[in-house]
Each structure stands twice: as structure tokens, then as C-alpha cells.
């Protein structure tokens, strides 16, 4: 019989700074716990349309006394809890530990800028997702973000870097964050990706992370149509959010919202993260305001 799962050995490994070791069933508990943490976080929902991508997120940190004055104006929109601009062509929606997410957002922005510096183009969306996943995966294995090979070979004299082994790192736990990436690049046009703490990523037409993601995904599965327009996707996202969120009232104090489209004149991606006032105006125009929550909730959007 195989060796029993030795808790003292696991403890010893933890003391040595190893993030994760396999259980006898072949599972990585730290990763599963991280995913569990995410399934309690605020919902983030994304829908890919033929002419854009829509993201919406449920804010958890709310309250009368919370100072939200910085979200009203200043910045680039959004209230900085769940939806971030990662690059001019990518919006990220995060679910999980906010502090971990901040660190990943920082990393993503740096990776995007590094690509811009080297290639003078916006980073392709899948590449950005890969960069973050490489780091996330590192924390499930050797506990660190050191890249096994250099991102860029600047000059011929940098060849030696190819043979430099990765630095030993000792992280303590994986990132407790799942991310939705809504982006555009000339290779595959609009895209929606999801990445989880294990470093897996996948592309989606519509998906959801965080609390009640199962419910939301089955709703999306029923309602999603191929070649849906952004306008319809906005309605679909808001309706799905209103059904899956804990509170029955949709409003800017509980919701973050963003849309990525192409600028009709310049044909460049245009990321719009809505401000609280704009979210309220949008909910009003979609007929999903607080007052008539009961009948608006279940009715499919009239515009569809």
C-alpha cells in the first residue's frame, strides 16, 4: 500500500515553504481551497458578443459609511473593487481575495506594458492570460513567479539566459483569485478568457465566476445566442446578474459594469468602465431599477 498521507510530512513541507503537495488521492488541497474561497466571492459575469464584450460584477464591500467619492469622478471609471483596466485593449474582472487580485492586476499591467515596449503593439489577449497563468501555476509547484525562461532576449549576448535555471522561490499559498479577461486583438478580435488559481485558462462565449456561478452559467447557457450583439449582451448580463445576486435590488452601490467595443472611426478597442451614475442610468434604460424589481426581473429584455 502506498504511504499514508502523512500530516506531519505535509506540515514539514509547509515549514520548508512548499506551497502544495499531492494528497494520496492525487489532489492539491490548497488549490481546491483557493477555488472554494473564490466561489464565495462576489459574482463576476462576462458575455462575448460579435461586436464587443460585456463584464459585470457584484460588489461585496458596501455600506452607508464607505467613502465612494473617488469612484464618482476621477480615475478611468469603476470603483476599483472588481473591474480593472489591464491594458487599453483588455478589461479584467476579478473574484476572490481583493489584495491578491490587486497584486495580479499590477502584474498584468506590467506584462502588457512590457509587451508594448518590446513589440510596439497592444498585447494579444490570450498572451496576457498566459502570462498571468504562468505565474499562478508557479505558485502551485515551486511557489514563485520566476519565469523558467526569459520573456525577451534583448540581444545576442543574452543567450546565456536561456540556460539559467529558475530561481528557487518559496511562496506560502496560491493566489485566491479567478479572473475574467475581456479583450480585443487583431488576431482573434473579441475574446473572453477565464483563469483560475491553478493556472488553467480557457476561452468562453459567456461565463461566470464567484458566488452562484453555477446558477448564472445555466441561465447563460439557456439564453446565449451565437452572434449576439453588444446591446443584447448588456441586457443578458444585467438580467442574469439580477437573478444571481443575493440582494434583489440592482443598483450602482452593488454593481460594477464594463463594455469593450471598437471605436467606429478609429477601429481601435475602446474600454468603457461605467461610473456609478452611468450604471444607474443604464439600469433605468434597461428597466431593471429598484422600484419595479419584481416584474422586470423575469421578463426578457424587450429590446432583444
Amino acid at each position, binding site marked *: 500500500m502506498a504511504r499514508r498521507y502523512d500530516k506531519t510530512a505535509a506540515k514539514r513541507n509547509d515549514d520548508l515553504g512548499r506551497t502544495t503537495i499531492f494528497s494520496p488521492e492525487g489532489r492539491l488541497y490548497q488549490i481546491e481551497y483557493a477555488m472554494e474561497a473564490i466561489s464565495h466571492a462576489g459574482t463576476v459575469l462576462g458575455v462575448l458578443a460579435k461586436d464587443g464584450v460585456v463584464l459585470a460584477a457584484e460588489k461585496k464591500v458596501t455600506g452607508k459609511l464607505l467613502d465612494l467619492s473617488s469612484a464618482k469622478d476621477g480615475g478611468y471609471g469603476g470603483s476599483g473593487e472588481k473591474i480593472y483596466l489591464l491594458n487599453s485593449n483588455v478589461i479584467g474582472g476579478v473574484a476572490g481575495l481583493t489584495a491578491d487580485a490587486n497584486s495580479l492586476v499590477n502584474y498584468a499591467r506590467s506584462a502588457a506594458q512590457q509587451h508594448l515596449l*518590446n*513589440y*510596439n*503593439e497592444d498585447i*494579444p489577449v*490570450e*498572451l496576457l492570460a*498566459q502570462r498571468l497563468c504562468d505565474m499562478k501555476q508557479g505558485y502551485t509547484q515551486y511557489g514563485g513567479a520566476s519565469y523558467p525562461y526569459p520573456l525577451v*532576449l*534583448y*540581444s*545576442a*549576448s543574452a543567450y546565456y539566459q536561456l540556460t539559467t535555471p529558475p530561481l528557487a522561490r518559496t511562496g506560502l499559498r496560491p493566489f485566491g483569485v479567478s479572473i475574467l479577461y475581456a479583450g480585443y486583438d*487583431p*488576431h482573434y478580435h473579441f475574446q473572453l478568457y477565464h483563469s483560475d488559481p491553478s493556472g488553467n485558462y480557457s476561452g468562453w462565449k459567456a461565463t461566470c465566476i464567484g458566488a452562484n456561478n453555477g446558477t448564472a452559467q445555466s441561465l447563460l447557457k439557456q439564453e446565449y445566442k451565437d452572434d449576439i450583439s453588444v446591446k443584447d449582451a448588456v441586457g443578458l448580463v444585467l438580467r442574469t446578474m439580477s437573478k444571481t445576486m443575493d440582494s434583489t435590488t440592482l443598483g450602482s452601490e452593488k454593481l460594477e459594469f464594463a463594455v469593450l467595443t471598437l471605436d467606429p472611426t478609429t477601429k481601435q478597442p475602446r474600454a468603457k468602465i461605467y461610473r456609478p451614475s452611468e450604471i444607474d442610468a443604464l439600469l433605468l434604460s434597461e428597466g431593471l431599477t429598484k422600484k419595479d424589481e419584481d416584474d422586470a426581473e423575469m421578463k426578457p429584455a424587450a429590446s432583444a
Partner: protein
Amino acid sequence: METSFALTGKGYLIMAADTTAARSIVKMKVDEDKIKALSPHLLMAYSGEPGKTRDTVQFAEYVERNIRLYQIRNLYPLRPAAAASWIRRALATSLRSRKPYSVNLLLGGYDTATHDPHLYWIDYLGTMTEVPFAAHGYGAYFALSLLDRYHDPEATLEEGLATLRRCLDEVAKRLVVSPGKYKVKIVDKDGVREVEL
């Protein structure tokens, strides 16, 4: 003397480079290929200062391998503009090193994302500019005025090749040390191919 030309047309790019490898006043070789296909839709003509032939080959191979590495790692190849930016940076970094490469490049490709040809003129100082037609070497003194007069971005492939022919003929007629033979390559939506003029 080393000479290279390139011009864009409707949905294609033509690149030509002489095939002589010389050392001092001696022709060592007359069938040297100085145009590398960096990816299925990307061509690079490289030439250098006289007597620094190894420099150009070394740098071209370095670029070739790195562009290939990017493609293997990231599933899709670099677009021409991105490749040009990366190469320019490699040259600019090299210029500021102890032993810089003195390589002049023409980088041309067909962008499969936007379906149009792009051409970049790059010199050993790390200067880069996007142009409709370009030339390096002594041939440039004769060809650029011809290209000013005859280049048409909407020209068909046959018209484009005829314009190139004019340039090569003029160089053959007027340049004291004119090269004898050229290699001509085309890149379009179907990829890279070589043609005989």
C-alpha cells in the same frame, strides 16, 4: 556592392537582394541568399558594411531564431509591425554595446490580421520607418528616384515586378560596381515564394 530593394503593391510585397558575397575587391561567392523568410509571411533582406559580412549573417540568424521562438511559444506569429519593432530594438541595444552589429535591413511582410503588406526600412543605427518602397546600398542612389516616379501602391504583381526590373536595369547600367545577379522573393496572402526575373 551590396544592394537590396523592396516595394509594396496591392496585397503583395516584393523584395530583391543581390547575391554576391565579397571580401575586399574579390567576389567570393555569387549565389548567396541575403533574404531570410522569418515566418510564413515575413521577409528580411540584410546587408552590412563592406568587410562585415559575418556581422550581418550572425544578426540575421539571431533574429530568425527569436522570431521563430516567439511563434512556437505563443501559437501565432508576430505581425510585421511587431517584428519590426522588436528587431529595431535589438539593433538599438546592440548599437550601445561594446561591439555593435552594423547591419541594414529591409523587413517586409503580409499582415494576416489586416490583410495588407507592410515594409520597414531599418538601418544599423536603429532607425526605423514604414515606407511604401525602400532600398539599401549604392543601388538606393539610382533606384529611389525611379521608385518615386513609377511606384504605385495599387499596382498588380506584374506591374510591381516591372518597376523592380527598371530599378535593377538602371543599377546595372550606371553603377560602377553593379552586382550581376539578384534573388527576388514575394510575400502575399499565400506566403513567401521566390521568383525568377
